[in-house]
């Protein structure tokens, strides 16, 4: 179990170094996703399985999809087509794939050893987290809901096409 933690840490650090040194944004994103998945395995090794699932679903899923959308939106036609063909050459995907294979091997090992010795730390169950979240921390949950609403309104306001919005306002 300790080996799992250190191996995942190594993968996370290597992937993070790659993120800040790449020049192409899509390559950096591939490495960033690997880094987040490695951190999820670290959480799992520490006995925080609920947070590990959240890390995969929200960070590696939702937030990275937002990044990919924006990067694809900003790309211009000819340059994007050239990038697509570049993406299919092995030199680009071999690094992230090798790192992700390490993580996959760890996951298979986890399933192989079975349930009884699953974590290096003491397991904190999702039930305890839910009780804490809606007990002493309920004001934080309310504040988080307000933050998400203001984030939604702010992103909608900023994301509007600039000229379009002004013209419409002067028309009406």
């Amino acid at each position, binding site marked *: *179990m*300790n080996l799992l*933690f*250190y191996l995942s*840490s190594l993968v*996370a*650090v290597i992937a*993070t*170094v790659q*993120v*800040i040194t790449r020049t192409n*944004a899509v390559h*950096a994103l591939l490495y*960033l996703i690997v*880094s987040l998945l490695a*951190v999820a395995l*670290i*959480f799992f*090794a*520490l*006995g*925080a399985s*609920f*947070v590990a699932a*959240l*890390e995969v679903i*929200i*960070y590696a899923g939702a*937030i990275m999809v*937002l*990044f990919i959308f*924006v*990067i694809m*939106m*900003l790309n211009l036609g000819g340059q994007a087509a050239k990038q697509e063909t570049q993406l299919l050459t092995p030199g680009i995907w071999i690094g992230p794939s090798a790192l992700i294979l390490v993580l996959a091997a760890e996951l298979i090992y986890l399933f192989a050893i079975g349930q009884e*010795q699953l974590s*290096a*730390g*003491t397991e*904190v169950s999702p039930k*305890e*987290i839910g*009780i*804490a*979240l809606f007990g002493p*921390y309920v004001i*934080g949950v309310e504040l*988080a809901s307000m*933050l*998400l609403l*203001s*984030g*939604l309104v*702010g*992103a*909608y306001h*900023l*994301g509007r*096409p*600039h000229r379009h919005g002004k013209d419409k306002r002067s028309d009406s």
Partner: protein
Amino acid sequence: MATVPMEHGLILAALIFALGFVGVLVRRNIVFMLMSIEIMLNAVGIAFVVAGARWAQPDGQVMFIFILTMAAAEVSVGLALVIQLYHNLKTLDVDAADSMKG
């Protein structure tokens, strides 16, 4: 069964935080700077979860959930700003946006 020492987890968090910090300082492409900020937030989350696992309390994971919420709100507003910057200046270089209007 030996457990992972808390110091090692905190060293990992500090290392990843430092990498994200270097990324913010070194890169001038605003998308990379946003990614580095995500890395730093994630490192802080690792520190919280490690501390929560050390004392076997749910508080660390609760704080991580709040950080996750904050990161989601931050990245949606940040990416909307990136799109605005690109529409106005036709570049992703933050040094192009070094002057204010008015």
